[in-house]
């Protein structure tokens, strides 16, 4: 197959609201269950070890009209909350046997229980991820939360999650995250050979296909990319920050690069590179996963670690990516991102890194204003 087609396939995968590939997996695995999870973070390793398919839900993109969910969630609520519910109400989620939510924000928290009421046949659960990493108790607590999840999955007919099975899954996901990091590194070093939207669809495709296949896809891409041709453009290097949950439209990511930016790092689909180092494989892999959440997870506006402030994480990211500026891409009404913007901005001002704030909605078709803003920003940097 022509390698360039990979990006089209990736685009199709991320825009498919009917989860055709997930249905295909289910046909091939009679009795197999599919567990969706609200994006950002979920212990996919555990779902995988139970013989189930973990699928990250990433909203409805720009292909879903909201007909019912507005009446349930009203004003001032981000779009992904509504499109997720809408997908359920419009029967796009029938392939799922369960959905998981976690303590990322108040809107998602309430959505979990609205889903539970509206779809009683679906196993709907909420994982409490700890907010106090400085307490030794948080690892034990999270391990107990994971054990509770395992019981639920086993009750649903999942395979017994043995230490061996879980360690195998951890290795597969470690590999997946390593390949994702490699892809990001490649793009950071060669932004003229891999555009941000291309890397985005490659990575996000992992949300809906089995990890084994995704590893293969990333591995093939990494093998092919260096031989791609492309001439360096006259662009400024930016880090995109803030779109860790609701995802920006593909056209918006393209536009940012079209008007003179290289997006050399970003937090899109952040759950796919959640751990910054490998999760260790040990006799008690549940503990290893819990300990990794507390000690080796990526910073994010919805994960709280007061030992390592997030604004320091952003500053390090900017430095490592040799970025000239930061572009805050924040989903409209995403309160965690709005809050972090204040302290991120303060830090960037202190270290003299220029930044621009753009709000987006997953369903957005006109980008004229955004284009002008980014163009002006780029010009101000170029002529500085």
């Amino acid at each position, binding site marked *: 197959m022509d390698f360039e087609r990979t990006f089209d396939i990736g685009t199709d995968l991320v825009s498919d609201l009917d989860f055709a590939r997930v249905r295909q997996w289910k046909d091939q695995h009679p009795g197999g269950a599919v567990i969706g999870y609200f994006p950002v973070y979920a212990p996919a390793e555990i779902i995988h070890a139970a013989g189930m398919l973990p699928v990250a839900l990433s909203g409805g993109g720009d292909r879903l009209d909201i007909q019912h969910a*507005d*009446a*349930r*969630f*009203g*004003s*001032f*609520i981000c779009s992904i*909350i509504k499109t997720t519910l809408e997908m359920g109400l419009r029967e796009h989620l029938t392939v799922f046997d369960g959905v998981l939510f976690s*303590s*990322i*924000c*108040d*809107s998602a*928290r*309430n*959505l*979990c*229980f*609205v889903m*539970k*009421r*509206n779809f009683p046949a679906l196993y709907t*659960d*909420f*994982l*409490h991820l*700890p*907010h*106090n990493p*400085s*307490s*030794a*108790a*948080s690892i*034990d*607590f999270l391990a*107990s*939360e994971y054990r*509770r999840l395992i019981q639920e999955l086993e009750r649903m007919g999942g395979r017994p999650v043995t230490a061996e099975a879980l360690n195998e899954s951890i290795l597969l996901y470690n590999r997946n995250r390593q390949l994702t990091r490699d892809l990001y590194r490649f793009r950071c070093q060669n932004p003229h050979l891999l555009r941000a939207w291309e890397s985005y669809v490659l990575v996000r495709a992992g949300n809906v296909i089995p990890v084994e296949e995704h590893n293969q896809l990333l591995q093939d891409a990494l093998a092919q990319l260096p031989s791609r041709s492309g001439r360096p453009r006259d662009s400024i290097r930016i880090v995109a920050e803030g779109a860790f949950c609701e995802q920006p439209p593909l056209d918006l990511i393209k536009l940012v690069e079209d008007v003179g930016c290289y997006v050399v790092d970003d937090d899109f689909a952040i759950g796919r590179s959640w751990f910054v180092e490998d999760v260790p494989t040990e006799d008690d892999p549940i503990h290893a996963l819990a300990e990794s959440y507390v000690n080796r997870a990526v910073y994010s506006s*919805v994960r*709280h670690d*007061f030992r390592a402030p997030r604004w320091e994480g952003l500053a390090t990211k900017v430095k490592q990516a040799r970025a000239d500026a930061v572009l805050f891409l924040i989903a*409209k*009404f995403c*309160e*965690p991102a*709005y*809050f*972090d*913007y*204040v*302290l991120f*901005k*303060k830090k960037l001002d202190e270290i003299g890194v220029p930044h621009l704030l753009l709000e987006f909605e997953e369903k957005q078709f006109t980008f004229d204003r955004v284009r002008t803003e980014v163009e002006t920003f780029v010009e101000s940097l170029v002529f500085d």
Partner: protein
Amino acid sequence: MADVRHTEYRGNIHQLQKELMQKWYERLNQAAETGTPHTASLMISGNCVELLEAFGVVPIYPEVNALQLAIRHQSLDPILAAEEIGYAADNCAYVKADIGCYLKGITPTGGKLPKPSLVLCNFVGCNTYVKWFEHTAVLTGSRLYVLDVPFLRLDEPSRDDIDYVVRQLKELVTILENITGKKFDYDRFVQAVRCSAQVEELWSQIKHLARRSPSPFDAYFDAITLMGPLYVYRATPEGLNFFRAALDEMQAKVAAGQGVFDQEKFRLVIEGPPPYPFFRTFRDMFAKWKACTVASTYSTVGGLWEFGARHDPDHPFESVAMHMLAQNVTNRNFLQRYEQIGRYVKDWNADGLIIHFVKSCRLFSAGQGDMRDYATRTLGIPTLYIESDLEDPRYFAEAQTRNRIDAFFEALEHSKMTATAV
């Protein structure tokens, strides 16, 4: 056509409440000026004030400061000051008002507020709490401790949930020992927990008096008056005296057959926080129709005791943990809130439900459209859904809100009349 009337609470406890809160602000002022007593910022919901009381540490509740400011029509300036440094139009305005006050040196009484010895984030369900206190710690340079309370995702907290919270409470004891230089006085802690249990019993009895018709007080507007002492003084003898006086006063009203309205026409349940910047205006919109709130979810932010839960001096740490985990509306899940409303409607004999969506607070408001669906279809209760804000005066559309409330009561009146006719 119903006549227009204004209401205000006419009892003694309103005055008593004012004095108590004034005294609290004086202590905070003293702390700011002299460095004693030690203080800790904490959140109203699921607070562990008993542990602070054991050390003589005075709580600072930024939420109480913020709402005081809004009631006095002073919240907009600080909100704008916070927006100037980057807070968004859609961030919780409580946070913006509080941060703005800090930036501009404003306090609710004009007195001083101390730099807290500890910024103690009791994280009970509201993710905004975590951000807010992180920002406060950055701004003030105070030490931050986040006490992580697992969300009530199951019917009851699990043993693991309770152990997790208890372990953190014990870590907090060590932190408080270091800050105050005092050894933890277990007996004083038990005493504080005992006090809370008694106050909770009194508060619960008061709430149950609203099941009478006419109700002696409004379980939304008047309950809010009683809530300040509930947070600040719950674990102290002063709190106990206050709530004894409150119960006596209410019982006397019941005995005399007095209600908020002599002829109570409608009995309501209200869900969601009030529009503090228009508190009186909003109240009058209901008073006009002689509509009395008999139960409200907002008055259970600090604690949900009317269904029997209490602190327990025989298990002080576990019961503080249980309070944080399960006995406050913010850490309970959305469907448990539906259930709570359902119980109110039935046991408090309500004829209508008002859902007040506040844009600041996604914890309360996200999904209230689904709640309306539940209320009308499953509970079969006439429901009115209105939108504004609890702190930001820019989101209160007075004429529109009044029209919708009038239309709701007109319809309710009509259906009551038709029902009687049948």
